[in-house]
């Protein structure tokens, strides 16, 4: 088989699906989002979003929930990554397995598990009530806290892996050298380990933020009707209200705002790095 024929033939099935199920649909969605109800070209749907405080409020809530998720994942995930980087190969393998295995089980099921744990009659509330620590159930679910807990559980593996991978490539003898030269453990952490893990932290933050912004299942199941985020509103416009042009515009606004914020963050992170380089 000549290469002239081979390449198109081998690529054809994947490219046809890509075109018919992704590229053309995205193009159609863009065209639809730029139509008003008379099917004329207009920016109405996008303008509605910017002018209506209801929608800007939804966007702000989506960003807020995502930022909390990033913070929780970073605070809990960073020590795990540090631990993995210093552990032996065998321990590292066990930790990797235990953090990744639940990740391959459906998010619907994991969220249900959290409902069992955090609900009004859930394990935590029943436990705390029975030992008399609290007198009425804590509200851990169907609010922003519930969504942040669910999202952190869903995405913390990405944060841990991003930081751990960046630390694996760092020579562990550097912190030993710092210790030998008399640096305290805290000094060695802030002057050696932390700066070296920054690329991993940046990658993890970007990843967890993007994933949280577009999460749909967890906000629906753990936020209930009170914590509506942008993906949930977009779903409602498409499936319940059947306002497809607005649903299409909301999809692009979600995509656009995520890309913009990630770009902004990357820019800030890079500027900070330049400053560090030139200051020293």
């Amino acid at each position, binding site marked *: 088989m000549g290469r002239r024929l081979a390449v198109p033939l081998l690529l054809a099935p994947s490219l046809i699906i890509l075109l018919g199920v992704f590229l053309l649909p995205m193009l159609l969605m863009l065209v639809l989002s730029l139509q008003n109800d008379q099917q004329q070209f207009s920016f109405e749907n996008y303008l509605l979003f910017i002018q209506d405080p209801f929608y800007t409020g939804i966007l702000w809530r989506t960003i807020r929930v995502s930022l909390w998720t990033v913070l929780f994942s970073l605070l809990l995930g960073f020590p795990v990554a540090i631990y993995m980087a210093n552990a032996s190969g065998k321990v590292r393998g066990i930790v990797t397995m235990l953090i990744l295995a639940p990740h391959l089980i459906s998010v619907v*099921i994991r969220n*249900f598990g959290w409902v069992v744990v955090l609900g009004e009659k859930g394990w935590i509330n029943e436990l705390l009530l029975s030992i008399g620590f609290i007198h009425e159930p804590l509200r851990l679910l169907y609010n922003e806290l519930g969504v942040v807990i669910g999202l952190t559980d869903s995405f913390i593996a990405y944060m841990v892996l991003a930081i751990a991978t960046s630390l694996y490539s760092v020579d562990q003898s550097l912190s030993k050298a710092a210790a030998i030269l008399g640096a305290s453990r805290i000094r060695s952490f802030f002057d050696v380990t932390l700066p070296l893990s920054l690329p991993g932290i940046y990658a993890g933050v970007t990843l967890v933020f993007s994933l949280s912004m577009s999460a749909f299942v967890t906000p629906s199941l753990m936020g209930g009707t009170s914590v509506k985020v942008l993906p949930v509103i977009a779903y409602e416009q498409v499936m319940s209200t059947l306002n497809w042009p607005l649903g299409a515009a909301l999809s692009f606004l979600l995509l656009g705002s995520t890309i913009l914020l990630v770009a902004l963050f990357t820019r800030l992170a890079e500027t900070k790095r330049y400053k560090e380089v030139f200051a020293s």
Partner: protein
Amino acid sequence: MKKPSLAGIITVIVLLLVNLPILVIIPSSFTAAGYLSFPPEGFSFRWYAKIFERPEFIDSFWVSLQLAVITAVLAALFGTLAAFALAKYKFRGSQVINSLLLSPLTVPSLIIGIAALLFFTRIGLAGTFAGLLLAHVLISVPYVVRLVLTGLSSFDFTLEKAGYMLGASPARVFWDITLPLLRPAIVSGMIFSFLTSFDNVTVSLFLVAPDTTTLPLAIFSYMQETLDPLVASISSVVILLSLVFIVILEKVYGLDRLFGLQSQSH
């Protein structure tokens, strides 16, 4: 013994927390009570028997299984062919094709679902099994392409040449030389595609017809109406099934390698 470090303590807590939701479901599913409680009251299989009284769970399980199996086979086939074209033939624009093939990973699956619904409605595929299948293949192919490309990056194409020189037919060379060497990458791509399809909610949400709903979607809808131990028993069945596949993946390829690939893709 070494003094436990702060990082070590936090690691244990995090590992407990991420596994907690799975660990509480299984005891909850054996409760004898009519509701979810802590601690679970009594021991019975009544909620497992209940699964068979709900045709939506049985039917959607078969839909999900068929969908996931066909998705896995097609995604593995198409993805492997594409990865071959990219690795074996250096042609102009191969970089562009490569990024194009991986591009569905950069767009949230909710948005892929909405776009597919809008387009499929125009061409009559909305609410059909074929439409659902095509969308699942779309989101699985990029993982296979990545896995097989990685496998091919260390593949020695002179082995194929040697086969030809010794007089083997192209088919023989493929079956006896190329395929066995790439088997771990292809098998992992297939299992990962199976799990991607079997767990998917956000793409299926927009593309199922009322009579072809998938299992995770059936659980999702049921959970929004009622929270009872039935969700726990059906979830336990899915957990057990997923664990089997996770163990195979770990043995065949290694979860860390698999996720190293996955997290780079976003």
